[in-house]
């Protein structure tokens, strides 16, 4: 069941209405049940993984809180880490080893039956694994107390609006909201929740899905494409991945708001960033924060001198890349960003920034940052190392041959639409509040969004890209 499907259009209102119709004491049970139905609609067998994660981390959280022995507490935490990362590794990274083993066996002339060895990836496993891990680590660090209710914890692990593609919520934000007695939302909150869902759908259906064929064309056979066509494909992917993922996050936040629970903001107009550090404060914020708090800082952060800081940045981003999947492409994508961050930090330390730089400098910095991000996207999107290098070499070789004018129009539409939405969001900051203040303007926006959805829907449903992670 994906957010842009008919099933979800029926499922969400049903769950929301039932949620507020039920007495407060049954609401969490409904959320857990609905979340399990939502997740089970992909493959009910993988519900067992959710249940295992829930039971293990609930038990570990309780033990960590009660245990006074430092060594025993470490052992309990280790158990949580081993179980969670073990499940993640078995399902997410085993195919990488299978591929390597198949290559090896094929090389030896043994030719194993590859499909029999393949492991299916449960959707969203990286997201809920990180979420549950943060719970036990935070209890271990004494930052939070464990919840006493298994049903509350089950809701925290499986909460359907953010279960399969985030945002990765922290226990200290989400658990209190789940435990608190929530009052049915007023009209303003319903309006803002529905507005967020509409915005997310527009980003997904109108922008991201429209770019998909352009991306496919450029990346399928990059050697036969001219440089402009490849640039169109890469820019289209920048729009696609952002519209797809931030659209998902908006729908998640809107859906959750209807249930009276606020989810963390996951994107803050990242393509408007004027440097790469700023980009990572705006892109997939919940993952960046997670990596910062549970990886970068424990590695030493910026406390051990410049070299160690750069090493920590690089390691964090490499692991962030590999979080998306075991492939050299993701590793290089993460490595590139690690390198960008390290270089930016180096320059920032050596060249003091002006407080109010001139507009031309800001535009140049923005364009350079956007270009770097796009270069890295090539490795993220390509199916293989070879394909990625074909795209990059095609871009740099300045090969002739223009794409159809229609493709140029479409990518300009995608870039323009994305820029328009982000500039409005950046300037207004809080659209839900503005919608309440200026209903006519908001109505025009809603009307345009609905028209866009009508115009750009009607074909097959395109799954969200981040579901595969």
């Amino acid at each position: 069941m994906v957010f842009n499907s008919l099933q979800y259009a029926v499922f969400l209102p049903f769950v929301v209405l039932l949620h507020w119709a039920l007495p407060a004491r049954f609401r969490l049970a409904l959320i857990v049940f609905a979340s399990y139905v939502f997740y089970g609609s992909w493959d009910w067998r993988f519900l067992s993984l959710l249940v295992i994660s829930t039971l293990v981390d609930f038990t570990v959280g309780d033990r960590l809180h009660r245990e006074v022995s430092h060594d025993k507490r470490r052992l309990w935490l280790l158990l949580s880490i081993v179980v969670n990362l073990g499940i993640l590794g078995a399902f997410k990274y085993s195919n990488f080893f299978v591929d390597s083993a198949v290559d090896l066996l094929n090389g030896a002339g043994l030719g194993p039956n590859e499909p029999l060895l393949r492991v299916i990836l449960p959707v969203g496993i990286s997201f809920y694994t990180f979420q549950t891990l943060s719970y036990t680590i935070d209890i271990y660090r004494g930052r939070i107390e464990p919840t006493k209710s298994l049903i509350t914890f089950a809701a925290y692990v499986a909460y359907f609006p953010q279960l399969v593609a985030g945002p990765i919520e922290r226990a200290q934000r989400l658990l209190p909201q789940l435990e608190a007695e929530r009052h049915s939302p007023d009209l303003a909150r319903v309006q803002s929740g529905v507005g967020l869902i509409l915005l997310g759908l527009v980003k997904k259906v109108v922008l991201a899905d429209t770019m998909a064929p352009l991306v496919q064309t450029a990346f399928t056979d990059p050697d036969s494409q001219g440089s402009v066509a490849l640039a169109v494909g890469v820019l289209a992917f920048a729009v696609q991945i952002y519209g797809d993922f931030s659209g998902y996050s908006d729908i998640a936040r809107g859906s959750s708001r209807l249930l009276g629970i606020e989810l963390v903001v996951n994107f803050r107009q990242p393509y408007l960033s004027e440097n790469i550090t700023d980009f990572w404060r705006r892109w997939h914020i919940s993952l960046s924060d997670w990596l910062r708090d549970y990886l970068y800082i424990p590695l030493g952060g910026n406390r051990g001198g410049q070299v160690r800081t750069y090493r920590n940045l690089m390691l964090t981003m490499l692991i962030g890349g590999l979080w998306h999947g075991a492939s050299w492409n993701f590793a290089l994508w993460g490595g590139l960003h690690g390198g960008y961050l390290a270089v930016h930090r180096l320059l920032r330390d050596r060249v003091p920034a002006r407080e109010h730089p001139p507009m031309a400098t800001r535009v140049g910095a923005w364009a350079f940052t956007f270009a770097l991000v796009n270069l890295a996207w090539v490795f993220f999107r390509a199916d293989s190392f070879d394909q990625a290098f074909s795209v990059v070499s095609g871009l740099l070789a300045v090969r002739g041959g223009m794409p159809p004018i229609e493709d140029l129009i479409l990518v300009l539409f995608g870039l323009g639409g994305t820029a328009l939405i982000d500039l409005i969001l950046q300037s207004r900051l809080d659209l839900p509040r503005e919608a309440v203040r200026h209903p006519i303007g908001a109505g025009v926006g809603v009307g345009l969004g609905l028209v866009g959805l009508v115009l750009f829907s009607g074909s097959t449903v395109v799954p969200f890209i981040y579901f595969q992670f």
Partner: protein
Amino acid sequence: MTMTPDPLHDDAAPRGPSAVRSSVLRLLAAAAVVVLVAELAARVVGGQLAEPLAWYDATTQLKDGQVDELAGTGLDDMVIGTSMTLRGFDTQTYVDATGRTAYNAALPGAVPSVNERWLLDEILPRVRTGRVILGIQTIDFSAELHDENLARWEAARSTRTGFLGSLERWGSSVSGLIRHRQELRDPAAWMNLVRDRPGPIEDTAGTLTDLGFRDVYVDDFTDFARDRTAHELATINLEAASEAITRMASALEAEGIELVLVEMPVPQAYIDLHLEGQTSYDEIRAHYRGLADNLGIELIDLATDWDADERFTDYTHLDVVGAQRVAELVAGQLN
């Protein structure tokens, strides 16, 4: 533990339920006005753009109209297949040679899973026929063509099934926005309007006769055509196509309609595009020949002894002389 600040309530926001209700009503009214204006604009502009494509492709849309014209009549033979058959089987030659009535209903990219839907759901309910001639080649077993083209068939307005399909058809009957949306969102349709060029359906009508295609093709042994065909042949799914053929055979048998497979001729350049060249080609052929045997279906082999590669305009399509020769050979075998 800290609670999230409430982003929705501040001093400037309307206070009280009635103020909020009024605000929401104004919002909805403004949205409705925008939608209505867009609907009016779509009706005006949509009429100037290309004819809405409601089928799998322009050829199918035109052939649907031709099938409508044939509705109620009976035909001796109905020819189906991919564009290999559409361009490679000259129906008039066949009609002249056999004295039977026939119609070439083959569609571009119509691998067996697409033909199954086209024949069983769309043609046979409208046109009676005594025999179905299915052109076949190894490319019919391409997994990529199966996946992409069946998805395209199932996404087309006229053939989309389920609640969403019904909703789409109802929506297009009442709303210009929905009826013309494919053209309104397509820059090519706007460019055609600006350049005063025909849309895809009008353009296809220029090449599609009532029985097949006119001889208007240009040589297309380009790198792009080679790579595309090789790509399609690189992914083979024997199961999906075989199951579709089996289901078609079973349904036709139940209706008392004969099914004949015609193995279409191909040039050596096509055979070489298979993943392992001749070996892969022979394996796939052996598979569908075995399938025809198992199903008790006659298979006419035009591929083995074909000696006129010069009649191909690209890796898969014959010119009109080649198409006439195929029709003569089939007529000779079936007579």
